[in-house]
């Protein structure tokens, strides 16, 4: 094609080479150059010191020696098969969810497999993971894959998968605590549960129960019925005005006063209820922010097409409100997860208190607090980061149709 007019093709500027980039950004003048050099020295010093400490100076034996204590606390070792059964259910459902939803679930499945590998090859000394346990960890990876292929062969509806997750949570709790009447499943008091198991039960239970309660409280607070809105507001404000550790102790001391002496509420359950109520109040305020962000025009349009109040709330308002507040909601989930450590205050043996009791019970570990607490911090960080990552993926996935 020849054209009479000369049109110059305008290209975006070439991206600069590495050396040019370094010169322009790190050594553009002598102050920047000096700062770059100093920063490099500091980074080098921090990295080498940390690496040297982690791999040579630190004594990881309190962490490496007691993997089962960190995982399950004092849960009777001969009853561990129940935990295994629960874990297998999780593996299967995770595989199914991975195939069904991909995205975040794929990442979770990879991380899960990684955890299982770490478990299988844990360089344990002392009270070791037995060979069957290690093999069982590896089998779980296969079960996850089996779930993946199962979902590939058979189309399973999302509602069924969600139902199966709920059912598996209930079955797991029954399995873990046992049924008094059955010989096969003797009762295991929650006083023996501990470690990561308890931390995860508190966190997952707290999150899944506090979320719907928080949504209802937020709707209640905005309700046009005065009774509902006053009750919701009082509940939210009272709970938000009290520190979590206060709520937990209150539940421990006050609840028994109202109940007959022979009826003792389980300590773990008390912690769970306390955390749920606390988290629900904060959740309610987050959701309320989202509700306020939905324009009035949306509600008017929904009314104009004839939807009733319930339909407007569930189909129009909540989907938009919740999407707007994913970041603060996940932030709330993460802080709830970390706040599980406060349950130690009412003698629930979650992960942190297990670490502390390991240190206290063994005189040979004196001076090794750093190793234990860094390990526990790392575990908390991994789970918190996974949640934060899931939140970002969810925002992206739901970002379609943003105004």
């Amino acid at each position, binding site marked *: 094609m020849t054209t009479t007019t000369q049109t110059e093709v305008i290209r975006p500027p070439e991206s600069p080479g590495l050396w040019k980039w370094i010169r322009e950004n790190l050594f553009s003048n002598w102050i920047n150059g000096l700062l770059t050099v100093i920063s490099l020295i500091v980074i080098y010093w921090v990295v080498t010191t940390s690496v040297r400490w982690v791999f040579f100076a630190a004594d990881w034996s309190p962490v490496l020696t007691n993997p089962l204590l960190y995982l399950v606390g004092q849960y009777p070792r001969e009853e561990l098969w129940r935990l295994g059964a629960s874990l297998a259910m999780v593996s299967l459902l995770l595989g199914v969810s991975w195939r069904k939803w991909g995205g975040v679930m794929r990442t979770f499945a990879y991380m899960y497999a990684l955890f299982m590998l770490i478990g299988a090859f844990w360089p344990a000394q002392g009270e070791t993971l037995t060979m069957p346990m290690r093999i069982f960890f590896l089998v779980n990876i296969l079960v996850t894959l089996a779930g993946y292929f199962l979902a590939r062969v058979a189309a399973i509806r999302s509602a069924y998968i969600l139902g199966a997750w709920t059912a598996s949570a209930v079955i797991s709790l029954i399995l873990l605590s046992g049924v008094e009447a059955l010989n096969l499943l003797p009762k295991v008091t929650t006083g023996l549960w501990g470690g990561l198991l308890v931390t995860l039960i508190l966190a997952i239970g707290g999150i899944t129960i506090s979320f719907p309660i928080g949504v209802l409280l937020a709707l209640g607070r905005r309700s046009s019925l005065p009774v509902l809105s006053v009750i919701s507001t009082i509940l939210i404000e009272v709970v938000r005005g009290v520190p979590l550790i206060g709520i937990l102790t209150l539940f421990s001391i006050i609840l028994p006063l109202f109940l007959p002496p022979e009826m003792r509420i389980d300590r773990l359950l008390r912690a769970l209820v306390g955390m749920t109520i606390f988290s629900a109040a904060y959740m309610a305020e987050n959701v309320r922010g989202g509700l306020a962000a939905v324009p009035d025009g949306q509600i008017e349009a929904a009314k104009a*097409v004839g939807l009733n109040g319930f339909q407007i709330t569930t189909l129009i308002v909540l989907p938009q409100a919740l*999407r707007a507040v994913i970041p603060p909601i996940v932030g709330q989930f993460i802080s709830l997860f970390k706040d599980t450590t406060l349950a130690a205050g009412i003698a629930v043996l979650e992960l942190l208190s297990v670490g502390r009791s390991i240190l206290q019970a063994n005189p040979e570990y004196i001076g090794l607090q750093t190793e234990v607490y860094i390990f526990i911090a790392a575990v908390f960080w991994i789970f918190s980061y996974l949640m934060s990552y899931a939140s970002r993926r969810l925002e992206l996935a739901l970002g379609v149709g943003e105004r």
Partner: protein
Amino acid sequence: MNDQNGNHKPIIVCKDVHKWYGDFHALKGIDMEVKKGEVIVIFGPSGSGKSTFIRTLNRLEEHQRGQIIIDGIELSHDVRNIEKIRMEAGMVFQQFNLFPHMTVIQNVTLAPMRVRKWPKAKAEEIGMELLERVGIPEQAQKYPANLSGGQQQRVAIARALAMQPKIMLFDEPTSALDPEMIKEVLDVMIELAESGMTMLVVTHEMGFARSVSDRMFFFDEGQIVESGTPQDIFHNPQEDRTKLFLSQILTH
């Protein structure tokens, strides 16, 4: 109430409709009767109560005195009556108000499926027919945010029509649009008017009023100052306020 009489029987009757916002008297006794198939244009300065009035017709605003009877049903506090009337009166808003978390076709099929309880297949079939009628069937799977203003407003019209209403209320449907998109929306409204739909349109599009409307109502300070055919209003306005307003919007 046979067919012949039905055509003469008004589908909208308003008698002495009043509305206050606190102490502000927004509507001061509106009387209006609209017959089936009529196209009514309501115009007037901002704050004259024209939007408030059209919004009382499907109870987005509550009137405090007088009577509003739509298709034989009186608007009152009875929620069932309100829901019935909202099924019969579709509404199109200035700001479109599409549901941003739903695709175009989901926007259109939502109410028929949830309110009229149509099966999904039927709702989608009729929804696609409507999207074709407003000229954007190819956008069915997109989200509103990916559409131009004119396209969004046409989806909003399709969404209102999907409930198969007897009346369509338009509240300044082209005021939020860029100039080049006004025509595509007006064309849809003209086609709708020609199909015999009863329409109440709050608008300043005087070209549309002149060529399509049967009667025009001039609102000022919460009252109907003057009404008549476009011929009367444009060529022989009786009231000074009408003349002044028309001169203001028609000179440039």
